[in-house]
């Protein structure tokens, strides 16, 4: 599985405040769906033994497992990294939410101070 969803550029992500809880909910759900797959690691996707003892089957298994679970470019690794990106987005959404909340708090405090003065 290609690992091409870098998540780069999200540092400038601007969201409307009302969308943040919905997006957090969606990404949290996605992460929870993914976790059973990534917990299994490479073992679940690799072929543990060749289907037959002939050389072709042995070579197929080796080639398949490189893509499935054994290598740094493998599907298992890609799933793990995808999970990390989902976690990163969730954290970022939390930071954005916090920034909005903080800004609202500061604005409210400022308004309160102005009204009280």
């Amino acid at each position, binding site marked *: *599985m*290609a690992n*091409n*969803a870098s*998540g780069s*550029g*999200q540092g*400038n*992500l*601007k*969201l*409307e405040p009302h*969308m943040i809880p*919905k*997006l957090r*909910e*969606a*990404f949290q*759900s*996605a992460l929870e*769906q*993914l976790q*059973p*797959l990534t917990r*299994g690691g490479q073992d*679940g*996707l*690799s*072929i*543990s*033994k*060749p*289907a*037959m*003892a*002939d*050389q*072709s*089957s042995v*070579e*197929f*298994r080796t080639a*398949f497992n490189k*893509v*499935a679970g054994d290598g740094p470019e493998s*599907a298992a690794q*890609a*799933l793990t990294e*995808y999970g990390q*990106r*989902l976690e990163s*987005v969730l954290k970022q959404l939390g930071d954005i939410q916090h920034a909005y909340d903080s800004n609202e708090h500061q604005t409210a405090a400022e308004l309160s101070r102005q009204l009280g003065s």
Partner: protein
Amino acid sequence: MTDQRLAGLSHQELWNLAHGGDPAAATTSQANFSRTAQVLENIAKTLSAPLGELGLGWQGQAADAARGGIGQHAQWAEAAAGRANTAAGQAGQQAAEQAAIDVGFDIAVMVVERPRTQHIDGDVEAVDPRLARANIIRPAPIEAAGAKGPRPIGVDTTLDPVKVKAVACGIRVLDVYA
């Protein structure tokens, strides 16, 4: 893949090759890749759902950037689901090939073990019912009743991938004599 030369191997050696692995392992991988594909498809849907709302009442560069930033994760899951399905198919094909060759061996064994008194005379019903049921055997015309010498058992290779597999593995079913 290495070009394998199976000609010259004995039936036992071929049998050992065909049965020296574990097709269930490929089946397990196939099932896990299929499940992975299904989960990734669901994730893509989960992440895509709120993207539609991002466009409601919010237009412009920031909205487009937000949609792109969030949407890439849904797109990745969707693309990965397709690749997982492909991998599942490849793993399944490995298990299926072993099963096909296994059947090929069964055919060869059944043909070899068939009693000599059970001649094929052109009647499909005379063929071993297991083979007839599998739509594998079609009796070939016998040249002459009581003819001596080896007679080929009629196995139709034109329709049956199992037979083709058996031949590819070196099992010369057509040349097994009654």
